[in-house]
């Protein structure tokens, strides 16, 4: 099933993801050119959400590989089920070593990890390789190979070819420079914080029963908080937390309750330093701009 470029935004909206036009184009190109999509952007702008929405649109399974330093093939690709292997060796004691070996290195004892799972599904899933910049260079090279051939070789078993080509989304926070080869293999999209209108729409979609005017006020307020010199800039998830809190408190206009606004801002500010930077006065000044 391929996406129609015109209705892709609508279909994303239907699954709860408010997309800007450019990301819609990028998602369409992914299918058209059969290339993975690399998303970069600050933490909290909703990179992971893109992959989730894409999976929902296609009705496909989302397979997620979270990268970390020291991630190796065992954790990412496949692992043998050692307990069962040992058991099998014990129960077949006395048999010819070659026969046992052939038996215990068969598919029955193979544990799929995300990458292997992604290429062995009947229906193409969405593979999300999250924070690929946290993995080591070696892993990146391996990933690149997998993404171009869509086959893996398991020394004990042979080569496994993909039964379906997954749609691949990679995200990066920029903690390490990715290799040029990987970057070139992928389509690129830089995800920015949503503008006020889009963020307001996101709030309305995700927070049931919230006023449109309040959502707009919250979006404006968050946009101006992001402009302050903070250590940790609040992401979309924080905005949603805050919106849910304010809606839960039955607030309808931010300007009427500056006290509540200031106190609930702890949803947005995640370090002590940022808390102390946004004093009551600063909150009031920002509120003044929201009007």
């Amino acid at each position, binding site marked *: 099933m391929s996406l129609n470029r015109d209705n892709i935004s609508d279909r994303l909206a239907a699954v709860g993801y408010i997309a800007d036009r450019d990301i819609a184009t990028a998602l369409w190109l992914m299918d058209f050119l059969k290339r993975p999509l690399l998303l970069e952007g600050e933490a909290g702008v909703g990179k992971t959400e893109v992959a989730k929405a894409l999976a929902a649109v296609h009705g496909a399974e989302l397979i997620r590989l979270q990268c970390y330093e020291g991630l190796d093939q065992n954790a990412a690709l496949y692992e043998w089920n050692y307990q069962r292997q040992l058991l099998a060796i014990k129960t077949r004691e006395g048999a010819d070593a070659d026969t046992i070996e052939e038996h215990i290195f068969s598919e029955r004892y193979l544990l799929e990890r995300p990458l292997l799972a992604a290429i062995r599904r009947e229906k193409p899933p969405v593979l999300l390789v999250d924070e690929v910049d946290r993995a080591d260079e070696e892993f990146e090279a391996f990933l690149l190979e997998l993404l171009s051939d869509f086959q893996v070789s398991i020394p004990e078993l042979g080569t496994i070819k993909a039964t379906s080509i997954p749609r691949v989304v990679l995200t990066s926070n920029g*903690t390490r420079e990715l290799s040029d080869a990987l970057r070139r293999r992928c389509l690129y999209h830089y995800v920015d914080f949503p503008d006020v209108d889009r963020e307001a729409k996101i709030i309305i979609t995700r927070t049931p029963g919230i006023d449109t005017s309040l959502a707009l006020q919250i979006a404006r307020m968050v946009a101006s908080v992001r402009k302050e010199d903070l250590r940790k800039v609040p992401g979309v998830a924080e905005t949603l937390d805050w919106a849910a809190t304010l809606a839960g408190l039955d607030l309808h206009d931010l300007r009427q309750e500056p006290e509540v606004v200031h106190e609930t801002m702890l949803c947005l500010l995640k370090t002590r330093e940022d808390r102390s930077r946004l004093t009551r006065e600063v909150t009031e000044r920002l509120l003044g701009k929201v009007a």
Partner: protein
Amino acid sequence: MSVAGRKSPQTRESENRSDWFAARRRLADFARTLRDNGFKVGLAESGDALEILTTPLALRPSTLKPALRSLFCATHSDWQRFDEIFDAYWLGRGIGQARMLAGSALEGRAPARHLKDVGPHAGTSGLPDHTQRRHDEGDAAGDGRGRREGASRFENLASTDLRHVVEPADIAQAHALATRLSRVMRARLVRRERVRRRGRRLDLRRTIHRNVSHGGTLLDLAWRRRKIRPLRLVFLLDASGSMSLYTAFFVRFLHGVVEAFRESEAFVFHTRLAHVSASLRDRDVTRAVDKLALMAQGIGGGTKIGESLATFNRWHARRVINSRTAVMIVSDGYDTGAPEQLGEEMRRLRRRCRRIIWLNPLIGWRDYSPQARGMQAALPYVDLFAPAHNLESLAALEPYLARI
């Protein structure tokens, strides 16, 4: 309507074909323009771009632009510059500017922009900075000279203050020494890592494989050695007027280090910060050094260490610094910005990296004490405050780095 997708009578057909060829040529030319601007565009990308031309996306610039942007961009800096280049090329806006960008054929992209930005100042060639500093450092400078008079004539090159290496032959020799030193430093560091780290854990996959013939009894164990990860070095070199006597030398030293260390990054700052690793990785030492010398010279208006560090913390630190990173700042600490800002940025930097080493050429001068207010503000966050006025003092760093 897409140029390729039309079906029409014979005459239209050939017209279309020539249209199509023209579009292809224009696209190839656009890809070249991007390449000139430092984009990594290969044949595969050009091919895919042709595919895009056959789709309805190619009908309007407003839809073609995001499509080509996703395809051709690979980094955030590409992303930021793409629109400008696209508009210049396809819509004929600001072509002159785009050409100029392409013309400054520096390898590093960010530096190229910085250079362009500071262009107008170039004529002043650093003089204002120099005169402005003079009274600041008057005393210290006098002392330095005094020392020189009294020094032994047989001082070897390694212990000569770098300011006084003036003969071209001596300069060349000093540079060669710097390069060698940077290599030696690298070799020793790596070796020490290897003996120090002995972390081992069991490799189950291999162990099982090996022990099938023992009936699953684990006799022959396979071990996994912890991978050795060398130290990462990040250099921040002050290239302001007050450092000008040392800059050329340190640039040479940086080149050696960046070439030898796989994980190292270099930045040069004066009133602003420039990422210069890419230029330094040029195999040709002379060319790399010339490029950098060009960047380092001709900038007036003081040193903004605090501001440069802020830029570094904001835009580069996350990418180039990890927990095994030693940051080396080479500067005399004369900051024309606010010392409070320098202190604050140093504090932020300190929290991210493993060690901060501040090399100050002035320490080598007799009776020097870090009086400059900027230096005072920065010192609490510095792990090692060391001289760097001659080659010996640089060599003395090596054991320290090996222990990190």
